């Protein structure tokens, strides 16, 4: 009667809400794709992907994206040098060593670290970390990759540590007990038995962290600079893919121009890279779950 | 000619590919208490849940054969499951009162089925149901307190009151006292005895003594089959099947 009609209407409405998420994904792909295709109709894809000079906003225009890519990679690599060992260390400590009281007290602090807005981290990188580093490295420029890289690492550390901790926690206790029964110390058990057993889970965490680092915007927009430069030197100003998009958006670039389209082309590259990394990370995590659950 | 309230014929039930019930045939009479007994996993709860189609909630299940209540096949495509569950109520093994007040628990069934005519009628029916479940005296002064503040036995009687409020024909009880202490159990058993005048009661129990005390008819289940079905007196004193005899004398299970 009217009751079952109402039920079906409600079910339809709920379904549409869920299906909206598909429209969002389609929207992202559509927006990025149309502008990227328009961009690539003027700039050959080889020049875009492999060119080494990026000056779309200058009079003498070049559209080689590699400087942005290396900028992103350098900052992310520095971030991972902080987040990966640090996060893993903290995870092993919390999972294998710490007493429950210590865990309960310190874990919320890690969550706070993860919840600080990135613009605050950017401020910290520019006005505290870089000047601090300059006291030890006099050649360090005011805008560079090192300061924001380290701060980004601190921001991502909780992600690495919490996912790694989950992975370590899923390793069955039987493995640890077997090692202890053979007379291994906790250190030997952790490093030689538990960590290798949790390897795919930890790798999944690391890859997710890289994806997060690549997509991070405000820390680098504030502290890394706006000079696209094909270099591995962390002490000089560079520009990342994300910072470039912000730079153009802050300006007056009119819609429909080639310069406007560059942000979508760069955005497409960013989207594909993070998407691939996320897929890989998920695949690793599924494989890990199959081993132990 | 004895009346038949529930008639099951050739019932097979499948969880996915696994067959849980084999060719069940039984005719349950009105206004009596029928008990299903048998060891764990023998299918008695599964069969109970087919009687009000609660198994429909589990994905990938299938029923073959027919189950008729008052002559009508309850698995026919045209059947309104919601209306069926109004007529066939259920009390669960672990009492599951809603996290609301005592009154709201009993009134819920009345509200969603739009039974009561106005607030006075609603209160009257709530009171009636709580009395029928022998709970009224204990809660009449605290009707608006949370249901979860009651003891285990009281919560189960509340669930019974909740089920009775919508005036079903049949009340199914899935091990209603298994989570309760002996005194609370006794009160539930007394309640069941009082209720059979007005309702048809089917109770699943793993406690043979309880079945012997409380029921008029008993069906013995074993590995998904119904081995024997007869008056309780006969099942427990002179069963026809050896398997039944072994079970009720405690030789296994």
């Amino acid at each position, binding site marked *: 009667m009217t009751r079952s009609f*109402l039920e079906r209407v409600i*079910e339809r409405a*709920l379904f549409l*809400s*869920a*299906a909206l*998420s598909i429209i*969002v*994904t389609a*929207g*992202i792909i*559509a*927006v*990025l794709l149309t502008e990227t295709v328009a961009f690539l109709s003027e700039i050959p894809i080889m020049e875009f992907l492999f060119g080494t000079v990026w000056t779309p906003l200058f009079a003498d225009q070049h559209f080689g994206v590699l400087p942005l890519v290396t900028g992103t990679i350098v900052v992310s690599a520095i971030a991972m040098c902080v987040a990966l060992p640090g996060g893993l260390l*903290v995870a092993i*400590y*919390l999972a294998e*060593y*710490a007493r429950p009281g210590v865990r309960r007290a310190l874990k919320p*602090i890690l969550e706070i*670290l993860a*919840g600080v807005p*990135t*613009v*605050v981290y*950017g*401020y*910290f990188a*520019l*006005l505290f970390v870089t000047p601090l580093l300059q006291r030890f490295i006099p050649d360090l420029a005011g805008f560079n990759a090192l300061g924001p890289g380290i701060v980004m690492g*601190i921001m991502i*550390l909780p992600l690495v540590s919490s996912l790694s901790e989950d992975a370590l926690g899923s390793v069955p206790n039987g493995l640890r007990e077997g090692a202890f029964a053979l007379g291994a*110390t*906790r250190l030997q058990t952790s490093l030689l038995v538990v960590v290798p057993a949790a390897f795919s889970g930890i790798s999944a965490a690391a890859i997710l962290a890289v994806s997060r680092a*690549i*997509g991070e*915007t*405000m820390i680098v927009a504030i502290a890394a600079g706006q000079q696209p430069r094909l270099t591995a030197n962390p002490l000089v100003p560079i520009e990342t893919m994300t910072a470039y*998009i*912000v730079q153009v*958006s802050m300006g007056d670039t009119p819609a429909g121009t080639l310069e406007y389209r560059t942000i*979508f082309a760069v955005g497409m590259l*960013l989207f594909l890279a*993070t*998407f691939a990394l996320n897929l890989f990370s998920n695949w690793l995590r599924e494989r890990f779950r199959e081993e132990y659950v | 000619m004895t009346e038949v309230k529930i008639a099951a014929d050739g019932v097979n039930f499948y969880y996915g590919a696994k067959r849980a019930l084999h060719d069940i045939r039984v005719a349950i009479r009105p206004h009596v208490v029928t008990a299903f007994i048998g060891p764990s996993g023998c299918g008695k709860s599964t069969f109970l849940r087919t009687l009000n189609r*609660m198994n429909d*909630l589990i994905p990938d299940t299938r029923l073959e054969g027919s189950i008729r209540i008052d002559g009508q096949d309850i698995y026919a495509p045209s059947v309104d499951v919601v*209306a069926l*569950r*109004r007529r066939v109520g259920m009390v*669960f093994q*672990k009492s*599951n*009162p*809603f*996290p609301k007040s005592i009154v709201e628990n009993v009134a819920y069934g009345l509200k*969603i*089925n739009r039974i009561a005519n106005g607030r006075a009628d609603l209160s009257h029916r709530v009171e009636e149901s709580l009395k029928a479940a022998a709970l009224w005296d204990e809660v009449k002064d605290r009707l608006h307190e949370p249901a*979860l503040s009651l003891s285990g036995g009281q919560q189960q009687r509340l669930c019974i009151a909740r*089920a009775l409020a919508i005036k079903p024909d049949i009340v199914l009880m899935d091990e209603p006292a298994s989570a309760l202490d002996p005194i609370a159990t006794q009160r539930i058993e007394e309640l069941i005895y009082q209720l059979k005048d007005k309702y048809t009661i089917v109770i699943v129990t793993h406690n043979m003594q309880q079945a012997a005390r409380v029921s008029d008819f008993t069906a013995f289940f074993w590995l998904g089959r119904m081995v024997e079905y007869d008056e309780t007196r006969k099942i427990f004193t002179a069963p026809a099947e050896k398997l039944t005899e072994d079970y009720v004398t405690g030789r296994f299970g």
Partner: protein
Amino acid sequence: MRRYLADRAFAALGLVGLLAALAALAALLLDVILDGAPRLSWQFLTSYPSRFAASAGILPAILGTFYVIVLTGVMAVPVGVAAAVYLEEYGAQGRLGRVIEINIANLAGVPSIVYGLLGLGLFVRALALGRSVVAGAATLALLVLPVVILATREALRAVPKSLREGSYALGATQWQTTQHQVLPAALPGILTGVILALSRAIGETAPLIIVGAVAYVRFVPDSLWSPFTVLPIQIFNWVSRPQAGFAENAAAGIIVLLVMLVLMNGAAILIRDRFQRRRIA
């Protein structure tokens, strides 16, 4: 003996690592508070941006943040809760349900700047909403939608099956059960998730920059279609200025932002605790 020494050393190292992370957080907070606290004043909170650092204020930014977040919540919460209800209670079995689930998990990992590009292409241009509060809120709503959905699903999943069974056994329909039993029981979890999603939205900068929130807004947004700014963007703008005095403004703005976040998260924790206590009675 040497083995146990290594063992103890490692434990110490782990603790040091943890404390180093804490020290970094403490340094950050201390730095911001020391730089910014002197600048906090009623004047600061109620003035407009200015070329002169000393007279600049964050009133439009605070109000802009408020409007955008409320609008984001209005858009994201009903849709997100509805989607989660569908996935948990109605649709998980079908292949389409699985596809939607995977899709939402993927969306949760997309960088926020890409959502900004989506907002620019879709809301600002294609739907011609312009660089408005509505476009910004819609963009953020899409960004936090996966968070709302995932948190709501967790809350729904925590509702015991026995509650639903009890409702169905009384002859309730699926929607009646969801509406009268499941959603009320899941409400604290949903509220907590919503607050967490919104506190994430408050700190988002990049998507709103791309959608066109400018940082030199000398007026308070007066309609859904007006230009606007938000607190993180104002902070970003001040940090980027080399003139003396703006760094302090940025730090003061950060303090205001952090206070907002603390209040929101505190509210979330309070709600969760209060409802948990009421349930157990």
